[in-house]
C-alpha cells in the first residue's frame, strides 16, 4: 500500500472539507526560537497559539470541546500566520495583520486582551493600566488572570504587560521566554536577569 497515495487521498479530503465549510478548526505546528508552536484558526481568524511548554494534544482536545470537534491539521490554512510569526522572530515585523477569533475569552478577560492587543511593539504597560483600560481599575487581579489565560499569546502581546515598577510578572511560556521577547523588541537589555 503506497503511503504517498494515501497522503494524496488525505490532502484531497482536507481540501474538500475546507471547500464545503466543514473545517471548523485548522491547525499546524511551526518552529520558533523557543520551540514548536501550535497555531489554530477558525473561519473567523486565529483562535489559539500554543506555546512550547504546552501539551499539543491537550490543546487540540480543548479546541474540540470549546470550539468544534471538526479539528483538522491543515498547514496551508495557517501560511500567513506562520509567515508573520517568523518575520516577528527575526525582528522584521512589529505589528501583526491577522484576523483574530476572540471566542475563547469572555467578558472582562476579552476586554483586557483587546486592550493588550493595542500595546505597540517595543512598549510595556502595567497590569493596573490594563485593568483601567478594560473599564475596571480595581480588577488588577482579573487583568493578571486574563494575561495568564491569553489563548493567543505572541500575537496578542501579553508579554508586554509588566508589574507596576517594572518587574516581569508571569508568563505562560516561562519567564525566560518573556524576557527574550522583550529583548527582541528592544525593551530590555540583553543582560542576564538580575
Amino acid at each position, binding site marked *: 500500500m503506497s503511503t504517498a497515495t494515501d497522503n494524496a487521498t488525505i490532502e484531497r479530503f482536507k481540501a474538500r472539507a475546507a471547500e*464545503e465549510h466543514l473545517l471548523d*478548526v485548522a491547525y499546524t505546528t511551526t518552529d520558533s526560537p523557543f520551540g514548536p508552536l501550535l497555531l489554530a484558526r477558525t473561519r473567523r481568524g486565529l483562535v489559539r497559539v500554543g506555546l512550547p511548554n504546552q501539551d499539543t494534544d491537550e490543546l487540540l482536545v480543548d479546541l*474540540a470541546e470549546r470550539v468544534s470537534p471538526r*479539528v*483538522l491539521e491543515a498547514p496551508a490554512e495557517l501560511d500567513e500566520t506562520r509567515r508573520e510569526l517568523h518575520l516577528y522572530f527575526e525582528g522584521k515585523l512589529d505589528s501583526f495583520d491577522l484576523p483574530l477569533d476572540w471566542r475563547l475569552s469572555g467578558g472582562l478577560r476579552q476586554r483586557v486582551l483587546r486592550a493588550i492587543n493595542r500595546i505597540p511593539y517595543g512598549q510595556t504597560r502595567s497590569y493596573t493600566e490594563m485593568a483601567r483600560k478594560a473599564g475596571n481599575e480595581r480588577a488588577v487581579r482579573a487583568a493578571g488572570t486574563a494575561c495568564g489565560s491569553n489563548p493567543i499569546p505572541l500575537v496578542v502581546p501579553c508579554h508586554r504587560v509588566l508589574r507596576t515598577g517594572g518587574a516581569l510578572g508571569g508568563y505562560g511560556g516561562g519567564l525566560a521566554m518573556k524576557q527574550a521577547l522583550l529583548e527582541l523588541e528592544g525593551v530590555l537589555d540583553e543582560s542576564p536577569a538580575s
Partner: protein
Amino acid sequence: MQTQQPFQTFLDEHRVPVLGFLRAMVGPSDADDCFQETFIAALRAYPKLQDAGNLRGWLLTIAHRKAIDHHRARGRAPVPVAEPAELVAVDGIPERDDGLWAAVGALPPKQRAAVALRYGSDLPHGEIASALGCSPEAARRSLHEGLKRLRKELA
C-alpha cells in the same frame, strides 16, 4: 455529554481500515472517491454524534453505503482494476493475485462486504456484524460463503 476527540485523531485512527475496505469493495482507483465521500459525510455528522461507543463501526457503515452508492451510480457490477491492494494472507487467500479483487468484486454484495471488512480492513468478526448491521451469525455466514466461493473461483 461525552467529550469528542478532535476529528484529526479520528481520521488518523480509521483511515487505514476504511481505505482497505473501500479498495476491496470498489477497486483501488475508485476507492479514493469513496473515501472522500465517506469522510466528508462523517465530518458533517461528527459534532452531533451521540453515541461514541463504536466509532469504527459507524464509519464503516457509512463507507459501506458509499460503496453501494458508487456501484449503483456506475450501474454495473464492480470491475476491479489492476494493481490490487495488498492483502493479508489468511485462510488460504493468496497475498497478491491480480485475479483476486476481480473475484471479490464478483461476489454477491453481502459476501463481498464481509470479505472486504475482514481482509481489506482487518476487522475482527464481531465488528463485521456491526458494520454490516446484521447479526454476528449472519456476518459469519456471509464471510464463510464468500471465502468458499473465492477458493473455488481461484482454484
